[in-house]
């Protein structure tokens, strides 16, 4: 555990994090995880965070060393897409039982489980996750993994992020550490070239990275490793030979990006594929970094040409939605990069942003939002479900874009809602993805059910029941939602 503590301290002390730089030594030591409030609703644990980050590596067997529930409850719960292997979706767990706990058989069981996976599936690697129970009873998964790796001649990677050590975000970072300690740099590619890049924090939700990858292909840029979306173990293991890194979800893997820069001199920048100008900016930055690292500068010109062509197509497609969406009011309730990158494109077609949360956004994100929105009042930190409900039921927005956990606040407040987080079913990245997002907003806002949702039953707005003929349309004004929203279980909003 002492090594785990040291690791956590190390992760907390992240110099690339602007928040962290602003703190004094004492505050820094306390860490950046917000202390959890007992009794208040909370989001996922460190184990969940670690698993979310690593699980999309598709050809790896992910073995959860825990009683059944840790894996059982999280099995296949993310909509990330694989272009081939399916092993990552198979659920492996040691299913630790009472007897295992009492007799201290956890380590032996884990070792056997690793052997059985090796024999049955022969994957390129096995990732082993520690959890609350196995960490508490003192199972040394690092030692077991080390021994198993030697015995079976196979990478067996310990992911030491038991749930109780902290938040989901901490787990994200610990997963990055596991990759640094055990995976990245363990294989040498025989085809490293000057146009190789890494993408960090891209999860390939609904396969959305596939909307972006063709752009790189056209520029002759090779994605050495996309971590973790649709990744293969060997790609990740040889990621240290890339020339540049783009980090997409900064809060999740910033430590990984910085340490790769430190160790292997791979420069990184933070960007986004959400929104048109942001996609273009990301392509520009990548080309610039590659040139800085020795690529032929002619790529800059080709990048501009591609951007001009693609932007023209995308804006043209989006313009078609202007008549339908102009003046519509959107409330963005998510975090991180999406808060500013989507805003710009939406505003371009006349959509009004009535609010955007900046819960997970960096100070830099916030600056950009301020610049785009020209009004700070539209920015809010985390909004409590009660306030959110109040705002929505006053019809201050025509649609809310958020994660699945706040969807019912919108729906019960009679406001259309669109999922833009991990459980969504449409890809929104890149130029085509932005068009798809706008199309989905259009569909959601214009679905006829909202009229039914907002209007009371026809008999409630009739004064004299006997006198009026039945009518399909009620003629009275919309009755405001008067019931108070009772539940406050949706605190953990956006995720990347």
């Amino acid at each position: 555990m002492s090594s785990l503590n040291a690791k956590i301290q190390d992760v907390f002390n992240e110099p690339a994090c602007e928040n962290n730089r602003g703190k004094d030594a004492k505050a820094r030591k306390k860490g950046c995880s917000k202390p959890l409030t007992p009794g208040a609703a909370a989001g996922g644990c460190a184990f969940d965070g670690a698993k979310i980050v690593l699980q999309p590596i598709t050809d790896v067997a992910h073995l959860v060393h825990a009683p059944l529930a840790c894996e059982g409850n999280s099995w296949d719960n993310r909509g990330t897409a694989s272009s081939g292997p399916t092993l990552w979706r198979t659920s492996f767990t040691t299913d630790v039982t009472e007897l295992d706990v009492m007799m201290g058989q956890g380590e032996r069981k884990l070792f056997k489980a690793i052997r059985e996976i090796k024999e049955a599936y022969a994957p390129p690697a096995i990732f082993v996750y520690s959890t609350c129970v196995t960490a508490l009873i003192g199972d040394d998964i690092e030692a077991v993994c080390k021994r198993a790796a030697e015995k079976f001649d196979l990478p067996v990677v310990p992911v030491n992020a038991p749930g109780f050590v902290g938040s989901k975000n901490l787990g994200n970072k610990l997963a990055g550490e596991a990759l640094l300690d055990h995976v990245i740099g363990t294989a040498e590619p025989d085809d490293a070239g000057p146009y190789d890049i890494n993408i960090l924090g891209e999860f390939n939700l609904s396969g959305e990275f596939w909307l972006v990858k063709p752009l790189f292909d056209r520029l002759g840029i090779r994605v050495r490793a996309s971590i973790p979306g649709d990744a293969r173990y060997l790609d990740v293991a040889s990621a240290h030979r890339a020339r540049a890194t783009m980090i997409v979800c900064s809060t999740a893997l910033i430590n990984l990006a910085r340490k790769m820069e430190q160790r292997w001199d791979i420069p990184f920048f933070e960007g986004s594929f959400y929104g048109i100008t942001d996609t273009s900016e990301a392509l520009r930055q990548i080309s610039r970094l590659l040139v800085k690292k020795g690529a032929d500068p002619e790529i800059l010109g080709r990048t501009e040409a591609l951007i001009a062509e693609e932007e023209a197509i995308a804006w043209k497609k989006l313009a078609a939605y202007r008549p339908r969406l102009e003046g519509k009011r959107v409330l963005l309730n998510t975090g991180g990069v999406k808060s500013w990158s989507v805003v710009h494109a939406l505003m371009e077609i006349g959509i009004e942003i009535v609010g955007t949360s900046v819960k997970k956004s960096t100070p830099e994100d916030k600056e950009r939002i301020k610049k785009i929105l020209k009004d700070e009042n539209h920015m809010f930190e985390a909004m409590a479900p009660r306030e959110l409900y109040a705002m929505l039921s006053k019809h201050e927005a025509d649609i809310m874009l958020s994660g699945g956990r706040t969807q019912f606040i919108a729906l019960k407040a009679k406001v259309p809602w669109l999922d833009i987080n991990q459980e969504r079913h449409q890809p929104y990245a890149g130029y085509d993805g932005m068009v798809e997002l706008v199309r989905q907003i259009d569909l959601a806002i214009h679905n006829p059910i909202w009229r039914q949702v907002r209007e009371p039953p026809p008999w409630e707005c009739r004064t004299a029941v006997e006198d009026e003929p039945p009518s399909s349309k009620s003629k009275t004004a919309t009755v405001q939602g008067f019931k108070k929203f009772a539940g406050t279980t949706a605190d953990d909003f956006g995720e990347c």
Partner: protein
Amino acid sequence: MPQSAEKILDHAPLFREPEYRQMLAEKKLNFECPHQDQVVTDQREFTETWEYREKNFAREALVINPAKACQPLGAVFAATGFERTMPFVHGSQGCVAYYRSHLSRHFKEPASAVSSSMTEDAAVFGGLKNMVDGLANTYQLYDPKMIAVSTTCMAEVIGDDLHSFIENAKEEGSVPRDFDVPFAHTPAFVGSHIDGYDGTVKGILEHFWKGQERTEARGTINIIPGFDGFCVGNNRELKRLLDLMGVSYTFIQDASDQFDTPSDGEYRMYDGGTKIQDVRNALNAEATLSLQHYNTRKTLEYCEEVGQATASFHYPLGVQATDEFLVEVSAISGKEIPEAIRLERGRLVDAMADSQSWLHGKKYALYGDPDFVHAMARFIMETGGEPTHCLATNGTKAWEDQMKELLASSPFGKEAQVWAGKDLWAMRSLLFTEPVDLLIGNSYGKYLERDTGTPLIRLMFPIFDRHHHHRFALMGYQGGLRVLTTILDKIFDKLDRETSETGVTDYSYDLTR
């Protein structure tokens, strides 16, 4: 031979064994003078083109795969909805066997009906003797409380007069003088089963109401459901809603118990149905409401003649249609719609909102009885779907106009087309040339599903190849939930199928939808 006592194969795999394949192939080759495979393929592909569609729609004399049944089927169904009533079809007995098997295969229940078994001599000399003997035998053998007479084409072509025949039969003592024998002329060469239903219900009401004094009972309502393959679920659901409201009502023609008898060791030739006394008293009701307008046009006219208020609906299904029905019932009965029903409505709306993204923009082809198609088109538009093809073989010009009006009321009906009087072979061309996401109809749609690959949802009589659907309501808010779920299941099943190929399409084979 591949069949052996140790491992008996079902016929489906059995005839795929090499011996049988060879046998069938040789039969085809040696005795059927088949066209070459390529010729067959070419012809099949031709039937999928716009060119073929135009020829298909130019048909004048030939009907291929009609989506309707004949008047006497409706008459038999109508008769089964009354207390201890034996449907008696005057004409040839073969027809009646069809009605019985049709109803029995759909409801998975016995269906009793008799005929006067007319033969060639009856055709020449008239069917009076058959009527006289038939009524007598039915009365003696099956102990009915009422015999409802309808006709097949044969009796209609020779022009038998039911009224005088029944009078004659009573004269001759086939049945007691005061025994109830209502009747309706139901020639199959006019209209369809929904008209047979209409005529029979009207005939029964006339029989009991004619010449009677009407003293209006304020606030009481008669409900006529119309020909409905889902009567078992629907009637019970509607009664539940009316009971919740505390409305005083009579269900006129209620086959929900007749076609859902329990297995408890007792064979019920008759079960449930509207009580004869209730039919008599129904004359005094303030209003008669029909749940299916096109099933009850003549009946409602008659109800107006006797002085009742009337209103008709188109299979009240979904949010707005159910709203309208309940509001009307509330207006007539003076009873308020209670909180419990308001909550049910809210739950349906909530469910539709939860699933809206999966339904938005889906295209449908619908066929069935006119009121049902109207109801489904309306509900689909409520969910943001497009009822691209709305077809009713027994739809009239009036229906067509009404459908167009409905479709014009929503942007989701803008592209929709109405096909009155067309058959399912026409639907086949429609599905090939202007494809849709889902087909809603009855079991006969399975051939369209096979040929065109359009997933079929069975929500219309008859459903022969799936069991027990008719036990669940489609009408009302609860029924709306059922229809919604059925449509969604089809969409998700299809999506799962299309995304299930390992390592190829399974990137969206999602656990959570």
